[in-house]
């Protein structure tokens, strides 16, 4: 089981590194979005509260433009049947989840660095709160968007449907994560944010378990 999860992950990673389709598009997407924010707010002093909201807007939409790729490309290339023959559905799910996790951590790393470099008002007082929110937020984001990517890969209008389906499901996570980032700007201690951390973690756990149970039905459809 573990070896086939690893194999799926490596396969996706290799084919991604070969074409760099998602990666390049994503990095450009991040650059475009951030410069859009910069143009729109040129010369204005933006509060840290607003900036932490905008940070998650960038993260959400870059996730939406890249994370569906793993499933949609299988469907486009017609390789779904081979994967179905080769291994168990749960192995496919966890392999893809792992790939999406790596992808989203990579994107978020880039987003945050670009954000720090470009946004002057974005000054974080407590880094542990910021990092905890970012890591747990990315975990939850990857978990929900992986299962929804599996759903929309089977639908007719893939591109537009993805954010539409993901947004409401992701909202409890996004609201909590935005709150965490705001708290980190205000300089809250990590102990004070345990409530938020618990929400983020339980969201991740609940979504992954439900996806694991439900993935069989989507995959065999």
């Amino acid at each position: 089981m573990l070896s086939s999860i690893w194999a799926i992950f490596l396969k996706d990673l290799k084919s991604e590194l070969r074409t760099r389709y998602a990666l390049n598009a994503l990095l450009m997407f991040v650059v475009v979005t951030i410069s859009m924010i910069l143009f729109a707010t040129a010369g204005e002093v933006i509060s840290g509260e607003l900036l932490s909201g905008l940070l998650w807007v960038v993260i959400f939409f870059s996730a939406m433009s890249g994370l569906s790729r793993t499933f949609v490309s299988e469907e486009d290339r017609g390789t779904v049947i081979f994967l179905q023959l080769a291994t168990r559905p749960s192995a496919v799910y966890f392999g893809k989840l792992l790939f999406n996790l790596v992808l989203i951590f990579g994107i978020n790393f880039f987003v945050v660095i670009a954000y720090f470099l470009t946004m002057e008002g974005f000054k974080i007082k407590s880094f542990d709160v910021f990092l905890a929110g970012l890591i747990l937020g990315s975990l939850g984001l990857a978990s929900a968007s992986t299962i929804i990517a599996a759903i929309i890969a089977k639908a007719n209008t893939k591109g537009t449907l993805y954010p539409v389906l993901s947004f409401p499901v992701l909202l409890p996570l996004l609201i909590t994560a935005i709150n965490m980032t705001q708290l980190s700007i205000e300089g809250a201690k990590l102990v004070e944010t345990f409530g938020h951390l618990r929400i983020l973690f339980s969201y991740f756990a609940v979504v992954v378990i439900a996806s694991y149970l439900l993935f069989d039905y989507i995959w065999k459809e």
Partner: protein
Amino acid sequence: MIWKFLLGLYMAIITALAFVIPIGFIPGLGERARIIFLHVPSAWLSVIAFFVAMLYAIRYLKSKNIYEDVKSVASAEIGFLFCFVTTVTGSIWAKFNWGSFWNWDPRETSIFVLLLIYGAYFVLRSAIEVEERRATLSAVYSIIAFITVPFFIFIMPRIMPGLHPGSKGDPEGAGPVVTFKMDPNMRVLFFASLLGFILVYLWMFKLRSRVEILKIKIQNKIYQEV
């Protein structure tokens, strides 16, 4: 047939009583608290209807019986309707109690997200043509969506300060609306109204799913005859 008339009469009496029954004095709300008889049951009912939709979705995934899918959609549709009613009544009430139609109170956010989730659910259904595939994928989505609903309905309004009665920081109690120190009159009428709403829901649900199942049966018959 007679039951429908009785139910109509019952709901009419509830509605009339909701306006005239003495409810005692409630600080901060006064007569505006009467919305509880219509707004709160419809909010609860929408969540119950979405829950039933999820149960039928699970049954569909187990049995692959298309009738279960029809029932799941019927319940989700009625839940959406009740959700809409809740949003509109709440919004009108908010204008008179808080001064504006929409304040992004945690409860308002949660009801808005419920509308978004099930709006997306119907969009997903319209985006897939093959019947079985549509049923399976929308069943999975409705399960995934419903397991995130508790985060909105039960967790967020309790940990975030808000204006809505029953949210964190409300001196009347940090729990759901029923832990209000309610007048006995009010409590009885509230639960009577809830019962009425449940009966209306059951009746609509039965009607809606029967119509859709009959449609499928007629189609199958036409195919057989051809």
